[in-house]
């Protein structure tokens, strides 16, 4: 055989192999079609690229599946996860993501199987999480017996204890539930909102005539929440890997490093590309940044445009007023701040108005708004369980305006929480002098008196 013939044969063989390879490749399952019309252009392009480049690489299939789930394409994500599982059956990440996706699709029996398989391949740190999700799927199937067994196996996992408490309450074992909430939960996470709320609700349901006043106070001052559902915690980090969300993340990092101008330029570009639903969150953030950079015109333009696609809030109205104030349009600024007060009175808006009236020498209005700002500062501090600073602000407010019943009420609440009951009683009485219908003050006053309470009241 001559060299030329050998060469030709080799080339033919190569061509046949290449054709077979192309044929094989063409027969490989493709990701499902994707309608990206509801996405911004950047995210749409990135998802389309991921979809096109997926090949037969299990890692790329996993990334695509995850990204689709992050953007809410659950049916498409499930299909891709199935393919990723074929390519990488032993991957914990793939199995966990698949189980999670099935859960979001309401395919609960399949999800339980998938979480079980994921748990078998899981590092110890994730085993409780897998078990917890299995328990939640069982609850969603209205199977409390299985869920109870599952949650009992991970009682060290606080959200599981909360779910178990609720099962116990629903199945007539209220005392056991209250004991669990009392004895287990405080040591694990004292004064977290949901356990306290569940305890208070249950107590009131069992005995509506006995309002658990102390627990209600604790509930109002509880500042931490228990993460019961990790939906956002799981999906948000995925979103931040792609599209405009990633660019927001990068811009925020630049901002944190002090490169404000660069960050602002990037935010502006992101804002331009964003959908109205995303602009809603970005507009106040960008407006604040523009104000920091001394660009009140740009901030004003953003805030004036906001109501065309979203709602004004007290926060955006304060910002709007700030932008106008920077432009020395004080009268219009005051209107915005007053509008913010009418929508929802808070420390910030009263603070702005207090400053303004002080500057123009209107002492009565300055005092009024200062007193209100102090009251709302005190209430915020009370709800954050910072009793000393709350009391200080409320007392300062009363010096300026002793006629606002809300100030007296929260001062009383602070004093009662601090155990100074006589002082609390006095403050409740002062509140009632100014608003005889303030039922929470009436109720609290009754609870401080030796007579037992007779009526459920707020």
């Amino acid at each position, binding site marked *: 055989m*001559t*060299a*030329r013939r050998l*060469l030709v044969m080799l*080339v033919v063989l*190569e061509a046949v192999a290449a054709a077979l*390879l*192309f044929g094989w*490749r*063409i027969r*490989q*399952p*493709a*990701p*499902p079609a994707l309608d990206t019309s*509801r996405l911004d252009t950047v995210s749409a392009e990135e998802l389309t690229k991921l979809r096109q*480049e997926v*090949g037969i690489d299990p890692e790329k299939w996993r990334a695509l599946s995850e990204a689709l789930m992050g*953007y*809410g394409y*659950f*049916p498409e994500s*499930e299909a*891709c996860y199935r393919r990723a599982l074929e390519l990488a059956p032993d991957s914990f990440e793939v199995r966990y993501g698949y189980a999670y996706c099935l859960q*979001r699709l*309401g395919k609960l029996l399949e999800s339980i199987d998938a979480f079980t398989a994921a748990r078998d391949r899981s590092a110890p740190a994730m085993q409780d999480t897998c078990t917890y999700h299995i328990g*939640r799927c069982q*609850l969603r199937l209205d199977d*409390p017996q299985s869920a109870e067994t599952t949650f009992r196996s991970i009682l060290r996992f606080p959200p599981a204890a909360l*779910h178990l408490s*609720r099962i116990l309450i629903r199945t007539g074992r209220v005392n056991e539930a209250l004991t669990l909430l009392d004895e287990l939960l405080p040591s694990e996470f004292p004064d977290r*909102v*949901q356990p306290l*709320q569940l305890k*208070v*609700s249950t107590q009131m*349901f069992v005995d*509506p005539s006995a*309002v658990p006043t102390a627990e209600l106070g604790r*509930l109002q001052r509880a500042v931490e*929440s228990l993460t*019961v*559902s990790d*939906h*956002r915690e799981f999906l*948000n980090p995925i979103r931040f890997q792609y599209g405009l969300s990633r660019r927001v993340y990068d811009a925020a990092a630049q901002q944190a490093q002090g490169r404000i101008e660069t960050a602002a330029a990037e935010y502006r570009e992101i804002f331009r590309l964003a959908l*109205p*639903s995303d602009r809603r969150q970005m507009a106040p953030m960008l407006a604040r940044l523009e104000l920091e950079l001394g660009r009140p015109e740009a901030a004003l333009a953003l805030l004036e445009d906001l*109501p065309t696609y979203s*709602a004004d809030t007290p926060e955006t109205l304060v910002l709007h007023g700030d932008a106008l104030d920077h432009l020395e349009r004080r009268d219009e600024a005051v209107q915005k701040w007053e*509008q913010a007060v009418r*929508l*929802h009175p808070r420390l910030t808006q009263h603070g702005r108005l207090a400053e303004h009236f002080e500057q123009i020498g209107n002492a009565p209005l300055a005092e009024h708004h200062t007193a209100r700002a102090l009251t709302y500062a005190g*209430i915020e501090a009370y*709800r954050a369980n910072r009793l000393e600073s709350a009391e200080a602000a409320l007392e300062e407010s009363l010096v300026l305006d002793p006629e606002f019943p809300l100030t007296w009420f929260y001062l009383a609440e602070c004093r009662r929480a601090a155990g100074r009951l006589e002082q609390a009683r006095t403050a409740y009485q002062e509140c009632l002098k100014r608003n005889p219908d303030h*039922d*929470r003050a009436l109720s609290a006053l009754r609870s401080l008196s030796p007579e037992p309470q007779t*009526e*459920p009241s*707020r």
Partner: protein
Amino acid sequence: MNTLPASTESQPGGKPPAGEVSRFVRAAVVLLIIPAATFAVLRWFPLEGTPLAVTRGGSTFPPPPIPFEKSTIGPEPETPDWITNVVVHDLDRDGLPDVIACDARRNCVWWYRQTAADVWEEFQLADEILAPAHATVVDLDGDGLLDVIVSELGSIWPDDGVLGRVTLLHNRGETFQRRILLDDVRRVCDVQAGDLNGDGLPDLVVAVFGYARGEILWLENLGDLRFRDHLVVSAPGTIHVPLADYNLDGRLDVAAVVSQDEEEVLCFENQGDGKFLPRRIWFTHNFDLGSAGLVAADLDQDGKMDLLLPVGDNLEDLHSYPQPYHGCFWLRNLGDWNFEARRIATFGGTYAAAAGDVDGDGHLDVVLASMFNDWDAPGHASVVWLRNDGEQNFQSFQIDDRPTHLVTITCGDLGNRGRDDILTGGLHLTGPFDRLGRLTRWRMPKGPSP
């Protein structure tokens, strides 16, 4: 046969001739071209195989026997609207039903006044209402003029802050004067009016939805528009509090749907003197059911007030998706505080229900609206009619698949035709934004009932 050109023959000294080297290189290149090109092209070659099968979870239903007429009240939507509640009521008592709508994007309440048959004038009843969630029409001060009580959420988004209010729009004849009836509470979702203590004055029951914390209050009417608030129960996620005499003892009781992981329907039996005995009349362990509302309606018209429970709210999720357990339950009042729960529809993302006689056959039908059906695929239902055959067997019909994202629905005979119209409001917080709606109305055309 000499297959190689002469120039490639070896040269003296054992070194291959330059031509032979060149041929060798060319041959090597030829051999490498196909694998390299294959590798390069294959790497970027899109998969053109069969796309993976996708199973969608959205709901569709057969069309009704007669297509419904569709129209809008008020302006067409140009940008995504946030209508949270629609109410049909003859606010000015001129004999023509009007429409009241809560608009959370513009922080206001609209009154669409029907001045003549199907002629609508738009009035803004009040602005600067922070995320209004519900409007209740009642003559609160007994002056013969209907007032409007607005439940202010304070934020349409999940938030545990103390942002809520109850605001009265006091009808003074020519204007509606605003008055705050309750504040310093978390997000308020619903207010209902009725005389709870038998003193002849309408009291109020307030659903403070909140988020992780919430409560149900009743506001005792002291006269002169003064109210004293009383705690009924502390519970998060109360959506609606329909009042009715559920046990037929002559006193108004309170029903409440409590969501937020609780997923239960409570009744508070009015024992008089401001005392309420709580009764759990229905619950599920499925914390994710997504209770979305509670409607009092005597569906079987047996004189005992029943309840409709639409389920399908996933607003707190980053992305909502219809679940197989979404739909609507009929809680049939059997008397003596026994309610029988019966699923009458499975419908993804159901957010609202209303009862009305849509086809004019004398039976109460049910209509449902979906906020979170599978909108990524076309054709999934947004409005469904459950036709009552008179024996409370309900047949589901898909009235429409657009607009999407419907959060509120009501029935009312807007044209005094003897058939109820269906009115919905669109809450377009999330995409897709290609099938927008504001106030959309459907009605069965004239003619015999199908």
